[in-house]
Structure formats: C-alpha cells, structure tokens
C-alpha cells in the first residue's frame, strides 16, 4: 500500500461576503481577490510539505484547476517541475494537465518527458477528462471531451514511446505533421499512466489498457463498481488479473494524535465541497455536455446539489474521508480496501480548505510514521464474486 499527498493549494482567503455574492467562485471571480503575496507564502508552505513527504515516504500528487479559489496550481507543469527538483526520492503524479483544454497534446508530452527527466524517472502521468468551469476558463468546447481526451492520451502515449520519429498525426481533434519529442522520457518505455474516473465505460477501457484507475470521493459502492468494471473488462479481454497497484482512491484525510483532535481539524477540510465548488448554472448543470440529454430532467428539476454542511462523521460513513488517530485511520483504510475489492494507492487530501501548514505537517508525519507501516504486507482481499456490472 502506498500513501500519496494531494494538495490543490487552495486559497481560502476571499471574504465570505464576496463568495456569497458571486454566482461562481471558479472561472469568473475577478483575480483582484487573489493576493499574490499570500499565494507566494502558500507556495512556500506547500513546497515545504512536499519536502517533508519526500523525507518520510509519502508520494506526491500535483494537479491543476484554473481561475478559482480551489486551486493555485494552475500552471501545472511549472509547479511539477519545482516539485521534481525539491524532492529526491518519492514519486510524483501529475493528475494532471487538463488535456481536454490544451490545444496541443504534443506540447503536453514534451512537458511530461521533460518532467520525467528532471525527476530522474519519478514521474507518473495522470489524465482527467475535466469539464464544467474548466471548459469556461480554458475556452474549450465542452462537447465530445471524452473522445478528445482519448485522442490526446493516444497522441501523448505515441509521442512518449516513438524513439524513431518524427511521425505524423491526423486525428479528429488534433493534427500534427511532425511529432518528435525531445528529450524522450527517462523511464522506458514511458512513465506509468493513471486516469481519474468513475465513468464505467472509461474504467473498462482503463482495464484493457492497464492504466491505474483512481477515483475521487467515489465512496464504497461507486468505487467497488468502478474497480469491478475494470477487472471484468480485463477478464473479458483475456488479460491477466490486475494487482491492487492498478487501483487508487482519493479521499479527505486527517491523522491526529487523537480522534478528537483529528475530527476537529478534519472538519476544516470539507470547505472544498461546501465552498470551493460553487459555480454558476451556465458552467454546471446547463453547460452543454454536462449531462446526457436523457438525464437533463433529473438534473434540472432538482435543487442545487452543492452541500452546505458536511460533517466528518458523515464523510467517514460514506467512505469519503479517513480521519482519526493513526489506528482509527488504519482501520478505516483497511475496511475501505476490503469493501472495494482491493486498492493499492490511497491519495490523501489533507492540506485542503482551512487546514493550516502546521496541521498538515503533523498529519503527514503521523501518516508516514504510524499509518503507513500498518498498511504493508496486508493479506489478500478475500475473493468475492464480482458484482454484475454492465459494460
């Protein structure tokens, strides 16, 4: 079992009255509300957290979102390049450049190859379909993004694994007459690929390709269904049974000395869901492609789904948070692993919302020292019949 630290470098410093008055805290909140001096301090703090992780054996996830209070890693390759140089040992997952927003996957492949060399082969590459406010921020057509994502992945993979280029690409979404990425990646044939999705047809395709499937806040049932779909697709394709290292799960996480302390600090994390995802209807439920037309009545008739109050207890119960003293967290993760049929990489979202630098450093230290050792050499998850999963 591996533990990974995922921090989006949020910016919880915009006055509540501004956020309340705005119809969206992403994409359209003017950047006059973002103080670059505060951001510089946040960058220093989170990079220090990453250096701690490097020392104690927690791997690191970077990602990107744009134009909002939830994430200051907007220029992801720049940030990941810094991480590559301030760490020496742990793996770095970029989860990732938003390839459905970027016009040129070859440039993305070049950035990834460069990062792999900079980190001397410690890079993992993660793909996300993205959507919603990111399509607005990136001025990217929100329609057909799944097809666009797959074509971008295919082009990036070929660019990273073609030592005898140049080659030509004339696809539906991207054309490039002369692809020849220098440097080539440090790892051969290429860095590990991940994708973040709970979309079942996509999980099946990940299974056939052998990419790592990670879910974000999927909870027990959705995650189980996704992983079963992955496993079943491999079986159907005559491919070997996947190991637990093919499965990853991201959840809120806080490890404290005591359950009481962890719950108190952990309660600062759901800000991510209660505040930082507020977005205007044209960038969410009414954005083209946001829901399949057949699902529109259900999506449109319902009130806003954004929760305004989430307790640590309810998040733990849903398998969306691991929180407590080290033994409590170990127990929660083991239970989760059993219930989803095995998972080898837990991504902890800890420095999130209103959690401070000092609080994050403490949780990471406890996670590495007290939690991680108890998650090694676990007995195989008891085999259970795969639930019936439609492809």
């Amino acid at each position, binding site marked *: 079992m591996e533990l990974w630290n995922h921090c989006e470098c949020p910016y919880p410093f915009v006055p509540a009255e501004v956020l309340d008055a705005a119809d969206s805290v992403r994409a359209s909140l003017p950047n006059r509300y973002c103080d670059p001096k505060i951001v510089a301090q946040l960058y220093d703090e989170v990079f220090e957290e990453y250096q701690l992780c490097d020392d104690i054996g927690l791997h690191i996830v970077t990602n990107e979102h744009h134009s909002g209070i939830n994430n200051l890693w907007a220029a992801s390759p720049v940030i990941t390049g810094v991480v590559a140089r301030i760490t020496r040992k742990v793996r770095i997952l970029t989860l990732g450049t938003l390839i459905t927003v970027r016009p040129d996957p070859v440039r993305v492949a070049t950035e990834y190859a460069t990062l792999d060399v900079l980190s001397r082969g410690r890079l993992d590459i993660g793909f996300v379909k993205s959507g919603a406010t990111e399509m607005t921020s990136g001025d990217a057509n929100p*329609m057909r993004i799944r097809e666009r994502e797959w074509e971008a992945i295919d082009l990036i993979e070929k660019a990273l694994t073609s030592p005898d280029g140049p080659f030509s690409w004339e696809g*539906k979404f991207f054309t490039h007459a002369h692809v020849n990425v220098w440097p080539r990646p440090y790892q051969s044939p290429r860095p590990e690929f991940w994708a973040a999705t709970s979309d079942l047809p996509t999980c099946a395709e990940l299974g056939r390709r052998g990419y790592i499937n990670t879910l974000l806040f999927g909870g027990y049932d959705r995650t189980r269904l996704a992983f079963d779909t992955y496993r079943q697709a491999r079986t159907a394709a005559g491919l070997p049974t996947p190991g637990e290292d093919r499965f990853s799960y991201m959840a809120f996480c806080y490890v404290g000395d005591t359950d009481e302390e962890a719950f108190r600090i952990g309660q600062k994390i759901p800000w991510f869901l209660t505040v930082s995802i507020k977005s*205007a*209807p*044209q960038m969410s439920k009414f954005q083209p*492609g946001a829901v399949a*037309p*057949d699902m529109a009545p259900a999506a*449109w008739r319902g009130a806003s789904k954004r929760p305004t109050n989430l307790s640590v207890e309810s998040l733990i119960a849903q398998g969306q948070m691991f929180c407590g003293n080290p033994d409590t967290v170990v127990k929660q993760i083991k239970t989760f692993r059993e219930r989803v049929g095995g998972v080898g990489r837990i991504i902890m979202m800890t420095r999130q919302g209103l959690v401070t630098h000092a609080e994050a450093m403490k949780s990471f230290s406890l996670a590495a020292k007290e939690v991680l050792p108890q998650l090694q050499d676990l007995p195989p998850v008891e085999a259970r019949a795969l639930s019936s999963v439609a492809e």
Partner: protein
Amino acid sequence: MMQIGPHALEVLERGPADAPLLLLIHGINPISPSAPFLNDLARTHRVVGPSHPGFGASPLPADFDTMYDLTRLYLGVLDSLPNRKISVIGFSFGGWIAAELAVAGHPKLDRLILVDPVGIKLGGREERDIAHFFNTHPDTLNRLAWRDPTRRPAGSYGVGWQATINDSMSDAEMVALARNWDSLCLFAWTPHMFNPQLKRWLHRIKAPTLVLWGEHDGIVVPEYGRGYAGLIPNAKFAIIADAGHHPELEQPAAFVAQVARFLQS
C-alpha cells in the same frame, strides 16, 4: 422526414403544396409547430422548416460538427426541394447558416431574409459583438434576448431559455432542449457564434436581402445588424419595434408584415 444524402432531417411543413416555397432555417431550437408566425406565412407560402442534425428529431451523424457541414447540408436541402425558386429565412444562429448558404450561392435561392443573425465579427478584438450563449448566466441572457420575457409564446424557447425551466415542463421537452443545446455547442463554441472568414465574402450574396432586427435585441444589438446589412450588396435593413432577439416570436404580426412586403416587392 427529408433525406439529404445520408442525412435524415425532421421537417415542419405548413401551407399549400403549390405555393411559393419558403425555407425556414431555425436558430438555437427548431421552430415550434405552434410558433405564432407560421400560419400567417403559410397563407401565401409553402413553409418548410427542417431541424438541423442534432436538433429536434434529426439524428446527429458522427463528426458532423462544423458550419461547413451545415452549409453543405442546406445546399443539399435546396437541391432536393422541387421548386425552381426558394426564399430563405434564417433566425439567429440559423441566420448565420443562411448567410453562409447565400455566400456559397445556389441557383434556386430567390430571396434572403436574415432575422437577428449571428455569424460575423465586426467589432474590435476586445469588444464582444455577440453575448456569449454558453458562458452567460441564464437570467442575463433571458433579459437580453427579450423586450419582455413574459411575451414568449408557449412552446417556443429563445436564448436564455434555461431561466424559464419549470416543473410544469414535460421530460420530453427538457430532453429536446438539452439535445439542441449540446448540438448548438458543437457548431458554435469557438469562435463563438461567428466565422472569421464570412464577413469578407458577404459581398458575393446575389439574392435580394432583407435584414430584420429586434429594436431591443441585447444578444446582438441593432448596430451590429446595420453593419451586417451594410456588407451585403443592396440589402435592406429594418427594425421591428418593441422586440428583442426573437422578433418573429415577440412581434409576429410586424414580422410577418415585413416578410410579406419584402417577398412581394
């Protein structure tokens, strides 16, 4: 249904079979069978209104997602209709299609009427000519699109329709709106609602042209319309008072009167 090569199109038809043919090219949603101008137009014309691929009940073929596709499709529609002369009315987004069609040229194209069309870029690079259909709050769009949103006829939906979603609507109505919206986005997300090349070719339009504009259109303002008309040889420009982006829905009598006068002239 109408078949254009491999493409099947749902078609709204109204009026005597032997009357002069009037092709309606719809905007962001297909023309409602209950649209308040239809019967008046159909007194003197055979009115034919296909639904674009991906709109209404028309299938959306794989990879059919550009204005190039739509223009060729409507050239095919003109080919397939039996009449020797066909007049065309294009509304909003459909006005853009109609302008592209007229620039491409077709021997059957008789007269052209553009109603609050989008499709060209007139202002500077930091001026937005066309309110952003997809990135603007529905309440704002609804306000910009209508002189008085309460005048929207039942069954018709204009720009900003999302602001009028309510529980009395049927699921089928919502599914249709969602599908139309998705399809519109394929064709028009970027550049948003215009073809950078179109402006320089409007001079090729040979058909007598009338450009109609709602006096209070806040989606594309009348000044844009005057500029548009000025680029089409000998085009007439007329304002429809007390209307927004959809004068055919908000002032159907004035709209029909303008159309009738132009087609008879």
